[in-house]
């Protein structure tokens, strides 16, 4: 994401809610979690930005900060550049606006994050586990996840092969 794109965003949303950070290899824009949908709509349809390709949505768990960070990777054919949006949610009550209405494909990514990290996406059409069984306990990609020893009376671990 170039500074130009950031300027366009900052004009609309203000520099205090949208923070640009270029310390990492892919500079990212920090967005507050309740604004993410608006930012996504804006960034997708703005004629000078046109970040129409949704690459990926990942969630990262930071237990020491008590945050879960959601990272959106977008791509614009017009600018030929990657845009990284970041939104943080509280780890105890992770809730966030769903962007399924902006990109349909985000629905499945959000379900996967709900499945593995336990983030709830508001106004998602089908907020259920995607990969794991519905009655699975816990969110495996959280750093403090302990795998249950039994699942339906089946052992989930086995002895180390000798």
């Amino acid at each position, binding site marked *: 994401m170039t500074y130009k794109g950031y300027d366009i965003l900052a004009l609309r949303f203000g520099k205090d809610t949208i923070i640009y950070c270029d310390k990492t*290899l892919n500079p990212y824009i920090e967005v507050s979690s309740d604004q993410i949908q608006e930012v996504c709509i804006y960034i997708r349809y703005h004629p000078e930005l046109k970040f129409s390709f949704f*690459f990926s949505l*990942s969630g*990262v768990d930071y237990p020491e900060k008590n945050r879960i960070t959601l990272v959106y990777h977008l791509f614009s054919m017009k600018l030929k550049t*990657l845009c*990284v949006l970041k939104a943080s949610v509280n780890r105890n009550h992770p809730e966030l606006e769903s962007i399924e209405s902006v*990109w349909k494909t985000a629905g499945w990514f959000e379900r996967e994050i709900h499945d593995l990290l336990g983030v709830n996406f508001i106004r998602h059409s*089908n907020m259920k586990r*995607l990969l794991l069984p519905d009655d699975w306990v816990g969110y*495996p990609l959280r750093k403090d996840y302990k795998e249950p020893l039994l699942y339906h009376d089946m052992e989930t671990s086995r002895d180390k092969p000798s």
Partner: protein
Amino acid sequence: MLKNQLSHLKPQATPFMEEMILNMGPQHPSTHGVLNFLIITDGEVIHQALPNVGYLHRGIEKLAEQTPYTTFIPFTDRIDYLSAMFANHVYVMAVETLANIEVPERGEYLRVIACELNRIASHLISTGALALDIGASTPFVHWIRERECINDIMEALCGARLTYSYMRVGGVSRDISQNIKDAVLKFLDHFEPIIDEYNRLISFNGIFIKRLANVAIISQVDAVNFGLVGPNLRGSGIEMDIRRAIPYGVYDRFDFKIPIGLGFQGTLGDSYDRYFVRILEMKESCSIVRQALETLPPGDIRTKIKRNLKIRENECYTCVESARGEMGIYLVSDGSDRPYRLKIKTGSFTAMSIVEKISQGLMVADLIALIGSLDVVAPEIDR
């Protein structure tokens, strides 16, 4: 009673009036791995097909958090067993970008050669399996025969036929010898005319065209909205290729075309377009391999890296154009010798999410053509 039995399944399906619930998979011949579709049909016509994934979830992303950077490479083979080279490539690229490791030029060229050969192998399976799903079993076996040649080359090159683990952080594992070079050229000389023969056999077959053309049309809007990537996206007529859009490695040095769907036999974005884009892409891959072999520079194949690779706190997103489209890795490091978080984005995952929308109103046989033409590989969805 039926409702009670199905209630624990993830997609909620409620049959209405004359509708019937058909459970397709996970043990079904043409779901390309372990997939489950809950199909609500009225006779042959599908009203709704709900994909139910997760049968092959192995938690590779969680495993990555417990595995040192260099040791994780064999795991990436298992993400997509048909095109393991790309998963290798995108992972080592992510680590190299984070650790700021330079790859020798020869290593990059070898990566290109291996990747493009793997792309051909993967497309062979994809197009052949599509023909098999349509009911023609001969093309698949012919393609398997050609793929065997690639497998032999790969075995000579990296010692494995399917799960290559050829890439290393900082280069590739082995150099290409003159014998392998000759074998690759021999294979290309042999293979390019075979594509025409294959087209005569199946691509231009009347029944085959009738079965695929105008079936399961994905519009450009839908293709972008559902995040389709790779040949599926290009089949809808959008010229988007990571090799061009975000050039990585040495791909900007080669001259190749990006084939896009033009509505070859029917509407733009139908199953036949997605199929034929793959056929055309194989020809382009052949030309890329030829160019890379011609201009293969001498030198090292790998830079020496520290045995215990530690990367300071940083993050990056790298992506390559795999056989199934854009494959990306989001890698977060925290200063230790293993990733803090590794997210793998694959093409089949997004391709699967479109099935529910496109399959409405198709026939059962068309659904199989749709899945075949989307080239879905189950372990890639679930990881």
